[in-house]
C-alpha cells in the first residue's frame, strides 16, 4: 500500500514538474503507438471490412487465423522482427534495429490482427443490415467497403482504440527491437520495466499511473473529436 501511495505521489511530482525525461518518453510512447495505430488501421479496417463482405473458398479459415493472431505473443513478434532487422537479417541493410521505426513495425504486427478482427465482427453486422440495399444500388466492392467503413466509423473507432490500448501498453516486443535505449527508444512501458528491475517501485508505479492517464486522455480526446455520444444514437 505504501508503494502505491508513493507511486501516486511520484506520478504527481513527475507531471507537475514536467520532468524532462518523463515528457520525452511520454512523447515517444505516443509517437510510436499512434504511428503504429495509423498504419495498422490503414491495413486492418479495409481488410476486416473486405473479409466481412467477400465470400471465398477459405474465408472461414482466414477468419479463424485472424482471430488466432489476436493472441500473438509480443515477445515472439519482437524476436521475429529482431531477426528480420538485425545485421544478418534480410532487412538488416535498412539499419532499423533499435530505432522507433522498428518498435512501430513490431506494434503494427501485434495490433493489426486485433483491429482487423474487431472490424470484421462489426462490419459483418452492418453488412447484413446494408446488404440488400447496396446490392440493389449496384455498388461495386470498393464503394461497399467505403460505405461500410464510413457508416460504421464509430464502431471502428472502438476497434482502433482497442489496438491503441494494446500498443501503448506493450513491452515485450519493443524491448527486444527497441533496446530501451535512453533518449532514443525508451518509452513508458520499457521505463517501467527498467525501474522495476532496479527496485524503484515508486517511480515505476508513478510511470504506470502516467501511462494509464495517457491512455485515458487519448481515448477521451478521440471520443470527443468524433462526437461518439452526440451522434452515436443511430
Amino acid at each position, binding site marked *: 500500500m505504501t508503494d502505491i501511495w508513493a507511486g501516486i505521489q511520484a506520478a504527481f511530482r513527475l507531471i507537475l514538474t514536467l520532468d524532462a525525461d518523463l515528457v520525452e518518453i511520454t512523447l515517444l510512447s505516443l509517437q510510436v503507438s499512434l504511428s503504429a495505430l495509423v498504419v495498422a488501421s490503414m491495413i486492418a479496417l479495409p481488410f476486416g471490412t473486405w473479409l466481412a463482405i467477400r465470400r471465398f473458398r477459405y474465408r472461414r479459415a482466414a477468419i479463424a487465423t485472424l482471430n488466432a493472431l489476436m493472441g500473438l505473443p509480443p515477445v515472439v513478434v519482437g524476436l521475429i522482427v529482431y531477426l528480420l532487422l538485425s545485421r544478418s537479417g534480410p532487412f538488416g541493410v535498412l539499419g532499423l534495429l533499435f530505432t522507433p521505426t522498428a518498435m512501430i513495425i513490431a506494434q503494427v504486427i501485434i495490433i493489426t490482427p486485433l483491429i482487423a478482427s474487431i472490424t470484421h465482427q462489426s462490419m459483418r453486422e452492418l453488412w447484413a*443490415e*446494408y446488404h*440488400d*440495399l447496396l*446490392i*440493389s*444500388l*449496384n*455498388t461495386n466492392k470498393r*464503394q461497399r467497403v467505403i*460505405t461500410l467503413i464510413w*457508416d*460504421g466509423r464509430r464502431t471502428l473507432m472502438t476497434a482502433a482504440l482497442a489496438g491503441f490500448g494494446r500498443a501503448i501498453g506493450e513491452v515485450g516486443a519493443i524491448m527486444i527491437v527497441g533496446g530501451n535505449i535512453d533518449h532514443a527508444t525508451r518509452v513508458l512501458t520499457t521505463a517501467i520495466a527498467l525501474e522495476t528491475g532496479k527496485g524503484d517501485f515508486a517511480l515505476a508505479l508513478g510511470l504506470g499511473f502516467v501511462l494509464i492517464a495517457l491512455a485515458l486522455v487519448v481515448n477521451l480526446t478521440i471520443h470527443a473529436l468524433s462526437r461518439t455520444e452526440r*451522434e452515436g*444514437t*443511430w
Partner: protein
Amino acid sequence: MVEPQMTVTLADVVVKRRGKTVLGPVNLDLGTDGFTIVIGPNGAGKTTLLKVLHGVERISAGTVNWSLPDDQARQAQAYVFQSPIMLRRSVRQNLSYPLQLLGVPKSEIAHRVTHWAGQIGLEDALDFPAPRLSGGEKQKLALARALIRHPKVLFLDEPCANLDGRSTREIEALLSTATQAGTRIIMTTHNIGQAERLATNVLFLLNGKVHERGTASGFFNAPHTPEARAFLKGDIVE
C-alpha cells in the same frame, strides 16, 4: 432523342432454395410502361420474382433478358424493400447517396435532394438521423431515395405493409406521380384495395408460378381461374 425501351423477358426461370422450388418455371414478358401489381398468397413467390427481375436473386435455371445491356438495365432500376433499409446517416445523406454513386454533380444533388425532401414532407428534417424516423417516414424516404435516381423501372415489395392510412395514401400519391412521369412500376401487395386503386395490370402468383395475368380491370372484375376468384373473395388459396 428517343430513350431506349426497357422491356424484360423471363424464359423458364426457376429459383430453388435448399432443393425446393420457390419460383418457376416462369415465362413472362413485361412491357415498357404501366403499373403491374404482383399478388398472391404468402409463399407464392412474389418477392422472389421481384428480386429475380431486379437481378439480386440467383436463378437456378432459365434466363432473364432486359432489352438494355446488363449494366444499363441495372442502373435504370430501383428497389424499395418491405422493411426500409436506412443508411446510418442523415435524411439528406440518404437521399444524396444513390446520386453520389452515379457521379451526379453536387449542385444537381443538392437541388434534387431539396425537391424530394419536400415531396415526402421531410424538408425540415434533412439533417435528422434517418434511422430515427418513424416507420412511415422511413418508407417514404426509401421511396424518395429510389425515385431520386429517375429510374425507368421501380420495384416495390409491399411498401405499405404495416403503415397507417395516411402514410399509405402519401406513398400511393408518390407512386401515381411517378407512373405519370413515365416510371414503370412493379409492386407486390397483399392489399387488394390498393391493388385495385393503382394497378394497370396484374400478375397473380400461386405456388411459385404465374397463375393468371391480365389487365387490372379484367382481373378484378372477371378473374379467369377459380383460385384467383377465391383469392379475391378472401378465401384461403393453396
